[in-house]
């Protein structure tokens, strides 16, 4: 009896979702999903087509004879570059890892007092940081270039690193997340005699792991995809993306397969990272609310 009652109550919610409505919902999701997925799919199949299939007319959406020729060609092109490809890869990884590490460390340390302490100037500081969400690289790149050159950082790794450390988004997400940590936990540590630094490293940092992982993804993606060539002109210091841009831009058609292979390789690291860390991202964004 009680069971059937429960089921009836459950039905009450479901009844508002009509069959027709559900069909439309599914249709919309599938259509938009195809739009999102198609370019990714096409990049992938173009990268494993043999050269005679690349230029079939009309363009085909399937492959008859998949091959890794394009990847081989890409590596050959890469090995003919004046600077070995491994050097670009090393640069990208170094900057991405160091930039992300320092941003998470410093922004996390600043996010803790902003979330949990009371001190004069706190609201003002946070308001300015929020404003900083809009001062993105695309808007400030010229004066940033001037500052970097005045600091003598042009053409060094610092030119890539410093601006990424001082961005707002990561701090905002970590601060919102830290606010959810119960005050009792912090008070207990204080009573045990821990100072604020110790509290940050022993209690706050481990408890904001999802936020930290989320910030790592955002930072990784930004740095991996967006290192500008203006601040660094020495070929030895450039990133993978810029090297691959040069390969695919030099002649799109002759090297189309190779270009697509390069795209696939460049896409993989951020995708893998996101798929692994997705759950943490969604958990973090739960607290990303912004009051007006």
């Amino acid at each position, binding site marked *: 009896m009680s069971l059937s009652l429960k089921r009836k109550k459950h039905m009450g919610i479901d009844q508002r979702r009509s069959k027709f409505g559900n069909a439309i919902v599914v249709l919309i999701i599938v259509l938009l999903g195809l739009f999102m997925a198609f370019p990714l799919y096409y*990049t992938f199949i173009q990268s494993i087509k043999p050269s005679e299939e690349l230029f079939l007319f009309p363009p085909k959406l399937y492959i008859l004879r998949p091959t890794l020729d394009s990847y081989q060609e890409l590596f050959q092109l890469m090995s003919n570059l004046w600077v070995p490809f491994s050097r670009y890869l090393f640069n990208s990884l170094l900057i991405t890892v160091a930039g992300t590490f320092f941003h998470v460390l410093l922004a996390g340390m600043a996010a803790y007092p902003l979330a949990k302490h009371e001190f004069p100037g706190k609201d003002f500081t946070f308001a300015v940081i929020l404003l900083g969400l809009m001062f993105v690289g695309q808007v400030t790149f010229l004066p940033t270039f001037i500052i970097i050159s005045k600091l003598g950082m042009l053409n060094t790794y610092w030119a890539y690193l410093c601006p990424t450390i001082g961005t707002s988004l990561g701090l905002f997400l970590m601060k919102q997340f830290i606010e959810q940590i119960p005050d009792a936990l912090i008070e207990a540590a204080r009573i045990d005699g821990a100072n604020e630094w110790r509290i940050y490293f022993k209690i706050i940092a481990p408890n904001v792991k999802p936020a930290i992982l989320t910030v790592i993804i955002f930072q990784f993606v930004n740095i991996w995809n967006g290192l500008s060539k203006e601040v660094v002109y020495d070929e030895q210091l450039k990133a993978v993306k810029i090297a691959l841009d040069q390969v695919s831009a030099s002649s799109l058609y002759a090297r189309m397969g190779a270009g697509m292979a390069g795209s696939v390789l460049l896409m993989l690291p951020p995708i893998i990272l996101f798929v692994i860390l997705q759950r943490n991202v969604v958990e973090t964004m739960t607290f990303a609310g912004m009051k007006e």
Partner: protein
Amino acid sequence: MKPKKESTLELIVRKKTSYLMMLPYLIFFFAFTILPVILSVVLSFTDYDMVQKPLFIGFENYLQMFLNDEYFIVAFKNTLIFAIVVGPLSYIICFLIAWMINELKPLMRAVVTALFYIPTIVGAAGWSVWKLFFSSDEYGFVNGILMHWGILNQPIGWLSDEKYIMPVLIVVQLWMSMGISFLTFIAGFQNVDRTLYEAGMMDGIKNRFQELWYITIPSMANQMIFGAVMQIVACFTVADVSVQLAGLPSTGYAGETIVTHIMDYGNLRYEFGYACAMAVLLVFMMQYFKKLTSWLIGKMGH
């Protein structure tokens, strides 16, 4: 005994750890996020080429934008198209999709989330495939298919014909702009208090649209504002898509946006003062749109 009231200075000294913890970040934040904006404002009133000393010229740069630079008007118009058409469209699509997949099983939800987010993170690597789709000969995917079906006789230069540049850029921008706001909405929907829905049923909410309007939207307003800010920033700073697909400058400046115009004047012509004035205007436009959007979101569902 009444404790002596603490002066602000004493309070600051007592709280010195809080300041010390923020200091390292704030140094970087100031030098590379705030100082550039201050510098932009100062330089926007000057004529400056990085070689000679800046020369103060008052509001001349701001006047030049609207009175003496026909391509800035194009850039301004295109940026507004991205902000008013693409931004809200992408935002609404993200919101609806997030709402629709909220009731799916966790695995399906994860797959759809990844699908909508991945184009945002592959950004740079994704451009080459769009170049291939819209390339100007019959090997370009779109031309190839349309010619095969007999809709076209001649291939179209999608990225070199002034008529088609903006529509193509809009499609690509839409593809890669779902990212952060989509994730925010996914999280927002999962976080709405379930008991509110039960209470809403008692109060006579009839269908899922009423439920969305009267319950879901008001309870995730803060997330929606964050998503809007991210979307505003993305739309007002559209540039790389245009540069990568249509070139800098694009044919007849058809794909020019404010940021590509800043690149043009800053990186190619070394007119830093003028470029900075455009950047300052852009920041003000973003702030204004943020205020407007927050106000709109606050009005919804009440």
